[in-house]
């Protein structure tokens, strides 16, 4: 049972890109709690959602349509991640859901279906956490524009926590400042440090990581389900939800799992890549839609990778490659702002998928982490400022030679490969010797 949904929430990128509904249905056949919904088949209910989403089984499509009108951009709560953990001999199932903000407005509008939907994910007597990625202040201000947040009175089983992840032009400003600081080699030490500080980049990294850790903590430590949203639910929401999965789910730390995560939690989830990744650092921060949201996510992954260098199947180059392709690519994968646009552009027919190229063995070998040792652990990163670092592979890449560091990396790979060779050789020789000795024994016995 759990396996079905568990595997659903970490489906292979290929299946998700070309979903065959029968396959899904057989998977879900025996699952009690969740179902696939085709309510968005024509992208009519939510233009930024994919045609197929996973929702609580007890909520029908009609209710979903109603909930969609109550959530920003029609982004009704959907399943993002399904987690199970054994505690004192019992299995606990918890989920991460994500959505847009509720449109409560100033007069405290409510929506019974919405309340029913998210309560349907809780087990009897259990509480859940709503992580709002905006500060309480910002969330309150949103009410004036028709947005808002869940009122305790209407969601008594849920506890709301506000974290503050910055968005849009603030992030864009931050990137511009950081890149400017990194590109000027004449800065003296004080100026460099003050510019690095003023860019606030690592502050954003810390905020995002902290929020993701919090969501993961609710799931793994509290055994509570989580609903994450900010305003639109297309930026900070996705950062927090996907990073929480990196922390919790070993599969998302493999190449295929990470590709699936990006496919599911960024592309299908409707992160507007075309708007966010148009010009990178070299444009005015007044560009309304430009923001390095995805780059910040990759940076956070890199920070975790640095702290757990053996827990990821891929290396830093894989992340850098994704960064590059998100901004400019010969593949169709990152084009458009959501599935609906990609469908209209007929990208599946007209362009190649990045994954089909990356997953070729010759390419994959470049991105393999030689230190990878699969583990099933939840990995808690340190978010202390002393533990976070500037991502040199991205920001200092063209500003200095990395020759010696690259050579050292090669040497490390050599040592690891040599080790494997030697081990294989020892095993062969041992078998050979054992065979010789049994032959010996056989000959002697008569």
């Amino acid at each position, binding site marked *: 049972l759990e396996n079905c949904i568990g595997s659903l929430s970490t489906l292979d990128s290929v299946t998700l890109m070309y979903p065959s509904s029968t396959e899904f249905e057989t998977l879900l056949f025996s699952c009690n709690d969740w179902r696939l919904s085709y309510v968005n088949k024509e992208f009519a209910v939510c233009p930024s959602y994919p045609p197929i989403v996973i929702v609580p089984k007890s909520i029908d499509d009609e209710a979903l349509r109603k909930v969609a009108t109550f959530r920003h951009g029609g982004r009704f709560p959907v399943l993002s991640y399904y987690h199970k953990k054994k505690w004192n001999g019992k299995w606990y199932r918890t989920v991460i859901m994500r959505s847009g903000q509720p449109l409560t407005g100033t007069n405290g509008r409510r929506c019974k279906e919405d309340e029913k939907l998210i309560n349907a994910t809780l087990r009897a007597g259990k509480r859940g956490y709503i992580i709002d990625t905006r500060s309480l202040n910002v969330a309150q201000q949103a009410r004036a524009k028709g947005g808002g947040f869940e009122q305790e009175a209407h969601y008594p089983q849920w506890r709301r926590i506000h974290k503050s992840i910055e968005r849009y032009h603030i992030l864009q400003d931050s990137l511009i400042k950081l890149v400017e600081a990194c590109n000027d080699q004449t800065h003296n030490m004080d100026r460099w440090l003050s510019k690095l500080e003023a860019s606030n980049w690592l502050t954003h990294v810390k905020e995002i990581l902290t929020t993701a850790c919090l969501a993961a903590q609710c799931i793994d430590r509290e055994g509570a389900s989580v609903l994450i949203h900010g305003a639109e639910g297309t930026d900070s929401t996705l950062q927090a939800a996907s990073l929480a999965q990196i922390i919790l789910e070993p599969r998302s730390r493999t190449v295929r799992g990470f590709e699936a995560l990006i496919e599911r939690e960024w592309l299908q989830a409707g992160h507007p890549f075309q708007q966010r990744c148009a010009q990178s650092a070299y444009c005015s921060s007044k560009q309304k839609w430009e923001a390095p949201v995805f780059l910040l996510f990759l940076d956070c992954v890199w920070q975790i990778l640095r*702290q757990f260098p053996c827990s990821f199947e891929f290396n830093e180059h894989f992340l850098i490659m994704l960064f590059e392709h998100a901004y400019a690519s010969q593949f169709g994968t990152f084009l458009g702002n959501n599935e609906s646009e990609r469908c209209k552009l007929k990208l599946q027919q007209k362009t190649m998928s990045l994954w089909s190229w990356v997953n070729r063995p010759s390419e994959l070998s470049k991105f393999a982490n030689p*230190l990878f040792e699969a583990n099933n652990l939840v990995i808690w990163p*340190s978010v*202390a*400022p*002393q533990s*976070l670092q500037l991502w040199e592979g991205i920001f200092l890449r063209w500003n200095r030679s990395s020759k010696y560091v690259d050579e050292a990396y090669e040497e490390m790979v050599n040592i690891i490969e040599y080790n494997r060779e030697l081990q294989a050789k020892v095993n062969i020789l041992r078998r050979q*010797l054992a065979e010789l000795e049994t032959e010996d024994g056989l000959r002697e016995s008569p």
Partner: protein
Amino acid sequence: MEHIRTTKVEQVKLLDRFSTSNKSLTGTLYLTATHLLFIDSHQKETWILHHHIASVEKLALTTSGCPLVIQCKNFRIVHFIVPRERDCHDIYNSLLQLSKQAKYEDLYAFSYNPKQNDSERLQGWQLIDLAEEYKRMGVPNPHWQLSDANREYKICETYPRELYVPRIASKPIIVGSSKFRSKGRFPVLSYYHQEKEAAICRCSQPLSGFSARCLEDEHLLQAISKANPVNRYMYVVDTRPKLNAMANRAAGKGYENEDNYSNIRFQFVGIENIHVMRSSLQKLLEVNGTKGLSVNDFYSGLENSGWLRHIKAVMDAAIFLAKAIMIENASVLVHCSDGWDRTSQVCSLGSLLLDSYYRTIKGFMVLIEKDWISFGHKFSERCGHLDGDPKEVSPVFTQFLECVWHLTEQFPQAFEFNEAFLLQIHEHIHSCQFGNFLGNCQKEREELKLKEKTYSLWPFLLDDQKKYLNPLYSSKSQRFTVLEPNTVSFNFKFWRNMYHQFDRTLHPRQSVFNIIMNMNEQNKQLEKDIQDLESKIKQCKNKQSDGVLTKELLHSVHPESSALKTSLCLKEQTLLPVNDALRTIEGSNPADNRYCDYTEEFSKAEPGVVSLEYGVARMTC
């Protein structure tokens, strides 16, 4: 021990330094003659050497007991809560006494006994031979000779007995020059670059005041420049900021006037003095000790401390030296005020850039012995070994180690040793466990009879060298002969593993370095195993071909083959754990307690109770 009143206190709490919710471990605190020991309920031991204690502070009584905060010179900070105030007071008073000794003879080195006999101890002291080192550099030679002027410490008390000077500099010139230099520290050879025939020399500031000159000193400098057959002009590098050097003139000291010396090019490089460095480190540590530190506070604290600026200044000065020699083929004379702090930093780091020998384990020991110990860096005063003037304490040597660490980061294959080696040396400049760093100059060390009464650190480090080897070191790469580090500001990072070496929650949870180190070790073992197996297979095959011919022979061989079998089984058994060790996630060396086991680390990283109060989850990590 007369200072110890209470030797054991139970139910003491050790607080987590960075936990905002006062997470703690409960255990028993023991006070021994040399260490403070805390054993928690998981039997994990925390040893603190009395000499490592920089300060002890008793805070105001709380409901749970009396807080005792101990700051160590190796950047460990522990925060105990002792249930009864009287116990706390006793421990506090004892530690105050024990951590600040009045006499050298009371230091740990004089009682430390690693169970070696006299000849072993003497051999240990002879491990590093500076006369050998000068020979390795290529002196004496036609231009440079050993001077006996200071044989009895008559000219300069803080210099070693054996000094190398230009052959054409006569004794009267040396004596004359020494009278014109602060503390008599006249210009002598620090490093000789054989290929370029250029030298790094060192001295203290001249007593020039506003206009004084000294012909002998001018002659000596000329002799140094003449000792370089390729380039006749030399650089005189004053490592102080110009303003400081000028201020010194009012006190009858100062710097060289270019007009009075022929063929010199004078240069300031602007490294700050010991007091600035001391307060800089203090500021850095204050910022880092803050609970719940924000990224911005961290970086503005880092900037305000000026620490990385100072590190960069030292590095830039060393690069200046290396360039003068490599590019211009010019000799360099380095001084600061007394020529034992900044001068030691710059000369040793310059030599390290130029000569790959100093980047080996043994070579690095030689470098420290030469430019720091023998030339009179005042280790005892700078490290506060005795209860002395706190204004003399300064992290000058720590800065040198940090510069070396920055180089290892930029050139990961150029050094035979690893970070643990640097940390270990740092540990021992303060530990007073070995004699090497006691005292302030060679004369003082001889008077203390350190070679008879204490042990040398180096042989112990060398015995343990497996722990300190850099698995990526490539000795063959001649391209690393001269290091040319990049000193653009963004290359300088905060050295977390030094300043937070005991705060493991801040460290990466898996160490690439340890894994590679273990793998390297394992590879050596595997190579041996392959040889063994191959020879056994050969034997077996030979035996079989022989066996076909003579059955009797085979029977006589039979016992041996069973012995062979058992030895093979043994081999398999010994090999297995190595494989297993590799499979665990943190492939750390269990003996190296600095990097503790991954799983243990893991359980520590997990919060006991999760509270989500105030809407902010406590991150345990």
